């Protein structure tokens, strides 16, 4: 008796053989105990691997927040390195607005240098005559028409502020107790 190859039995166990090969194997297996045991052995691998489907116990919310923040930073860094907007953004912007985008990138870089100075004054963004965004010791502050709105940062020793050229202020910090990464973006209207 000619037995099917080990590869065919491995594929048969997972229902991965083509129709003809499958019929041939079925016919053989009906009369061969040894090959049936082989197939059973391959089929049991699935049960062994099923444990692999479970994620290990981890704090998903924390991990997801960290990944989202890193993805956002990676994209921002990529845009700076390329020095040009993405395809969709470019299509939307059109020729004239691409210049404005380049100017925005330059302004972002300038804001970055400004923030990284040894004794930096608080970053500040003025979107119009009456609205001013700035970073304070406690968080981001918006002053408009004599009124002030403050978005306080959580418990953290180190908060990174960055000013956006399009009228935004970002605070990024890691909560020293929980380890959660928080990013606050405030946009001036």
């Amino acid at each position: 008796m000619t037995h099917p190859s080990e590869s065919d039995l491995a594929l048969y166990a997972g229902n991965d053989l083509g129709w003809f090969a499958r019929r041939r194997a079925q016919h053989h297996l009906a009369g061969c105990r040894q090959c049936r045991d082989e197939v059973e052995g391959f089929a049991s691998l699935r049960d062994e691997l099923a444990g692999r489907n479970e994620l290990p116990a981890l704090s998903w919310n924390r991990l997801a927040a960290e990944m989202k923040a890193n993805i956002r930073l990676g994209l921002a860094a990529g845009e700076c390195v390329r020095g040009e907007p993405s395809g969709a953004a470019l299509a939307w912007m059109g020729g004239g607005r691409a210049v404005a985008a380049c100017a925005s990138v330059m302004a972002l870089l300038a804001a970055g240098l400004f923030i990284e100075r040894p004794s930096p004054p608080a970053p500040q963004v003025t979107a119009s005559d009456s609205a001013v965004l700035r970073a304070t010791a406690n968080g981001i502050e918006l002053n408009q028409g004599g009124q002030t709105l403050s978005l306080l940062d959580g418990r953290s020793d180190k908060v990174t502020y960055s000013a956006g050229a399009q009228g935004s202020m970002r605070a990024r910090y890691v909560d020293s107790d929980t380890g959660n990464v928080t990013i606050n973006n405030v946009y001036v209207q």
Partner: protein
Amino acid sequence: MSEAVEPSLELRERQNRFVSDHLRRIFAQIYRIVGNVADAQDLTQEAFIKALQRQEQLKDEQKAAHWLSRIATNTAIDFLRRSRRAAFVEMDVKAESQDESPEDLLLRSEQRDFLEDGLRLLTARERAALMLRDVEGLPAEEVARRLNCSKATVRSHIANARIKFRRYMEKRKA
């Protein structure tokens, strides 16, 4: 808010939604291939950054999801090829419920190590094919699309992977 800011915000919101919608799925997919959390985290981030830098590919949500899965699979395979590490570092195994005894924890940890040792015998593509077919339950056609190869090649990868893995299991159990 000025008009010039809106499209940028809209784009960012769309990107954020895309990340939120697919993050867990992609992380799990990569974790199954590379087998440890720290590398899966890095590679998930890498896959999303690669995908989001090609905005034109993300217009159709369903196609974008498939495309992202392919990027994730290829990123994980490239990583395995590059590293071919002998040892993986896993995060501490924690109790999934309060009922889980230290013995259960130890057993679960040992089972995971046992599986990892076996999977390490496979090539990067065999490992990815086995995970996608036998763990995620994708049809062979979809596995072929993800690995960017023919269905016959996928069958060959799957057969080799099952044979190697089974021999490993028999040897370890003997």
